[in-house]
């Protein structure tokens, strides 16, 4: 379950993708297929490795650039790259791993997907390698390792960029109503009637996509009970959803819904169409909790909304009396590179050399920051000043690097089955058709699955 790239998919891609899904769903997909262009070891040196990753600008060019630089520096142990479109990749990589034909380097999202590879003994344990190569580990955001760590062991090299979820607001709407950005959960609740009286929806939400609702729960849980509340679910503790902090978070979300905090009919709005962002930049809604990836589309589609300085942003505020650290954040703490346990020793060595010398090298870091993204490397904030979006990028850098814990989105952290059950229950919770207790009971049943 990875809804993020979907939200940026063009409608043509969506049409093609759904057509392919129909074809697959109605005819049944074929069994394990060959690795396509992945096998680059024919006739090459013993240490030659393979690497599969995603297409799409700007990431594809940047990833390829790192591979090219590595190959130039290591003519004896080249890496052959094969690229895939997002949705095709998800099926392809699982098929290849299941058939024992995985590439040496496996690109992924960490969390629940990585856990399933670990359970099938398909990826290398990198814990001792990181201990020996402390320099590689120490230059990255410590928070990026959370989603790479399964049961205390590191199974992936964090890579690429951060995408935290932040609270956006429309400064013009706040000025019109004479309101100040909220400093606490209480502020949000008292802003709700103010905006409703002024005929503006307090909060935009693309509720039909469900993971959008989930972001509110992620922050409420964290601010009320700290990161250990969801960690207990992730670790498979029995009845973890019945934690009092969890019940309080679910209750507060329903209080906000009952107070008409979210735009009327939010469950008819999809995030894939960017309709939730449109509500914010057209001034029909005052606030929106969303990933930093929406900044780009609001800049493009919102006219002079962003360039005119009307978009405000902040980290999610504290909840009164909550135990959680308000510097914590949630979202995509990075992307993840694992090494196939089926690779030969020479291939594994090449992959490790690639991790320590090429991944997030100075040249790659510069390419990411030039593309308007914040890489997971400490100290890049000085390079962000040149961008036209310097102020926002600096904020993203600060939120991500100061976060004591950068939690992974729940649907990514859990197994696909548990994630789907979670999204179903979240939809029901937000439609007020189940109580917080019913939510907890239902979700407790899939803990550890």
């Amino acid at each position: 379950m990875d809804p993020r790239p979907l939200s940026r998919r063009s409608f043509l891609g969506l049409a093609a993708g759904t057509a392919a899904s129909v074809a697959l769903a109605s005819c049944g997909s074929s069994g394990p297929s060959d690795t396509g262009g992945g096998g680059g070891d024919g006739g090459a040196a013993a240490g030659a490795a393979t690497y599969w990753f995603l297409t799409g600008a700007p990431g594809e060019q940047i990833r390829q650039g790192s591979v090219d630089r590595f190959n130039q520096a290591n003519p004896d142990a080249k890496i052959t790259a094969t690229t895939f479109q997002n949705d095709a990749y998800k099926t392809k990589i699982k098929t290849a791993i299941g058939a024992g034909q995985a590439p040496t380097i496996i690109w992924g999202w960490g969390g629940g997907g990585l856990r399933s590879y670990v359970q099938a003994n398909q990826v290398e344990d990198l814990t001792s390698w990181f201990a020996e190569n402390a320099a590689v580990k120490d230059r990255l955001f410590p928070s990026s390792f959370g989603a790479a760590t399964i049961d205390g062991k590191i199974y992936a090299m964090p890579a690429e960029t951060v995408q935290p979820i932040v609270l956006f607001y429309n400064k013009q709407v706040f000025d019109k109503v004479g309101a100040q950005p909220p400093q606490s959960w209480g502020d949000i609740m008292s802003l709700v009637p103010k905006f409703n009286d002024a005929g503006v929806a307090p909060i935009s939400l693309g509720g039909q996509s469900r993971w959008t609702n989930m972001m509110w729960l992620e922050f409420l849980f964290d601010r009320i009970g700290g990161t250990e509340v969801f960690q207990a679910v992730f670790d498979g503790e029995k009845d973890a959803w019945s934690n009092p902090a969890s019940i309080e978070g679910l209750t507060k979300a329903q209080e906000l819904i009952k107070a008409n905090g979210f735009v009327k009919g939010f469950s008819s709005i999809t995030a894939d169409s960017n309709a939730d962002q449109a509500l914010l930049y057209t001034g029909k809604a005052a606030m929106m909790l969303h990933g930093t990836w929406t900044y780009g589309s609001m800049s493009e589609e919102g006219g002079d909304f962003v360039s005119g300085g009307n978009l405000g942003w902040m980290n999610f505020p504290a909840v009164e009396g909550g135990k959680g650290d308000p510097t914590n954040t949630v979202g995509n703490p990075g992307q993840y590179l694992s090494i196939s346990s089926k690779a030969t020793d020479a291939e594994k060595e090449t992959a490790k050399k690639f991790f320590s010398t090429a991944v997030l090298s100075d040249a790659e870091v510069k390419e990411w920051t030039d593309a308007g993204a914040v890489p997971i490397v400490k100290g890049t904030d000085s390079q962000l000043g040149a961008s036209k979006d310097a102020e926002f990028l600096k904020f993203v850098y600060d939120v991500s690097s100061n976060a004591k814990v950068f939690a992974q989105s729940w649907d990514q952290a859990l197994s696909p089955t548990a994630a789907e059950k979670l999204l179903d229950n979240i939809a029901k919770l937000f439609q007020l058709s189940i109580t917080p207790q019913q939510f907890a009971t239902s979700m407790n049943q899939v803990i550890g699955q």
Partner: protein
Amino acid sequence: MYRSRRSQLIGIAYLAPALVFVLAFTAYPLVQMVWMSFHNWSLITPAKYVGLDNYKRAFADDQFWVSFAFTLKYTAIITPVLIVGGYLLALLTSESSRLRRITRTTVFIPVVIGLGVSSLLWYWLFSADFGLVNKALADLGLISKPVLWLGVDAGRSNLAITASVVWKVIGFGMILFVGAIQAIPREITEASLVDGASYRQRVTRVILPLTLRTVLLVTLVSVIGSLLAFDQFYIMTAGQPQNETATSVFYVYLNSFPYLKLGYGAALSMILALTILVFTVVQLLLTRRSHA
């Protein structure tokens, strides 16, 4: 003997490309799907044989029945609209004149648009805050506040999506009906005119009986299409509210891809395929009878 074997071989050689294509892209996947439906398979771990468990689970799965019932309901609503509407349009435009040709083309244009594209288009038209549908209804004084078309109420979502699909595919049936009506021999039409038949009598006694086969064909195609509906629901409601608008194929998709239960998804596909087979056989039997 020799010659006939030789000509047989030549025949097979000519057939080979098509045969290979069908074997590779229809027969093999179908066999593979049957195999998958007897296994539990998440791609990563090897498939595990579970016998008929997936099928037993399907029959006890509430969501499967909700989806199935919803798909039948959708099919039952949209099919008559497409057939009757398409036929009426065909009667109006079957004789060629400039205006009729323009009308025919206009109605047919949406057919060539991708379903994904048209669904996204209608998603925005039905948007509560930005949509032209609500704007038009409000300006006409039919509604006083915006209607939440999609994803909130299953019945209303179904209505909205049905409207968008009718716009999209009604031209397909119309074109086939126009072709069938134009193929009616002139002598028959002239004979009925000489006998003093009124227009209504000509439609019900001459045109309709002589185009019945096409009507049944279009019904068959449209029923199968509706039973396999996916794109429009995936894009416009994503199954919301609470998977009440999740069609059968959508549920197959959910199981096969997001949940990665490939075996279960395959079993659901098999059940769906058999259901469609039953509909097809019934309709084909009807077609044969009408022909005899």
